[in-house]
């Protein structure tokens, strides 16, 4: 129980901290932060329930007004903005990542965590995100899907990084990857 509380809280904090590290800087100088990488890693390392709860805890704190989102943002207002659906998708995405990792414990860590991160951290997160944008922006669904495609390359890079980190963890401290240990 104590271990679960500590892991969930520390992973929520870790995901928040990732918001302050620019992971990739685009050619025109805009830094892309890695909080979705934290969501992917949370699910892949902690497993479905703990990973999902870590992301849920983070978005609850953001909603309560703690400035833990990239750039020191927070508050209820974010959930009413066009990107609110993506935030709601975080716990579901982390849960999906963890579920895939738990189902394929013996598969190569890089391959399975890459797949889990793409499915959970991109596809599952994008579904409520697109739905939220559709509700708020009142634009055709196809147009919204087309417009968010610009984020896919960056998220694919994060999925690859997630795969690499899980592979390193499995190699150097396998006991930490709870999703594969049960």
């Amino acid at each position, binding site marked *: *129980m*104590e*271990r679960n*509380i*500590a*892991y*969930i*809280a*520390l*992973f*929520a*904090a*870790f995901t*928040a*901290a*990732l918001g*302050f*590290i*620019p*992971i*990739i*800087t685009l050619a025109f100088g805009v830094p892309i932060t*890695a909080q979705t*990488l934290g969501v992917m*890693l949370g699910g892949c*390392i902690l497993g479905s329930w703990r990973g999902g709860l870590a992301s849920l*805890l*983070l978005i*609850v*704190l953001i909603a*309560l*007004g*703690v*400035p*833990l989102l990239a*750039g*020191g*943002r*927070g*508050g*209820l*207002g*974010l*959930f*009413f*903005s*066009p*990107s609110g659906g993506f935030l709601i998708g975080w716990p579901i995405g982390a849960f999906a990542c963890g579920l895939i990792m738990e189902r394929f414990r013996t598969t190569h860590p890089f391959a399975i965590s890459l797949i889990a991160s793409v499915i959970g951290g991109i596809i599952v997160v994008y579904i409520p995100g697109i739905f939220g944008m559709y509700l*708020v*922006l*009142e*634009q055709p669904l196809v147009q919204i899907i087309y*417009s968010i495609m610009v984020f896919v390359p960056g998220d694919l890079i994060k999925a690859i*990084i997630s795969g690499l*980190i899980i592979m*390193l*963890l499995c190699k150097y*401290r396998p006991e*930490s990857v709870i999703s594969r240990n049960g």
Partner: protein
Amino acid sequence: MLNLNSPIKTPYHNLPVVWKLAILSITTIIVYQLEDHLILTALFLVLFLLNLIPGINFLKLAIRNLTPIIPFMVIILLWHVLTGAIVQGMVLLVKFMIVISLANLVTMTSQLDDMIVLIEKLVKPLGKIGLDLSFLGLTFGLVIRSVPNLLEITKRLNFSWRSRSLKRPTWRLVFPLICFALDDADHVAEAIKARRPNKG
């Protein structure tokens, strides 16, 4: 402590959090149904006045909290300009401004502790189906206290990297940072266990 709560005390601070959240929810539902430009403009002005009543410094703080959403607003407006629906875009922007400023006002005038108490009350029924929710407040506190610690570690890792390499550290910091977080989690688990010996 990390918080977007306003240091300037306002009359809104005395309103119960549950009322403020109820007003926010009802207003959001109504605003997204409205299409009348006049009513929307009037509501926007009311929101502006609500932010102005506590004083100019409070208004400045509220505007500062809203600045991160400006790029979104610009993108939405450009999108509507490009698709030829400028009026629709402007109406949508006013709706956003009303809802987001009201949500910001609730955030700024509600103490984090009161919000946590409300959440604990809301999830209390889950205790009846056997979920142990006594740790909820502790978990919130742990996250809020751990973030500055992890940011400090990130700063040190960044400094160490830069002292050894001319290249930028970027994602390479994530692996050592995650190791620190996992080690910290083990230490915190031990500390919680030591403080809650009867909770199993």
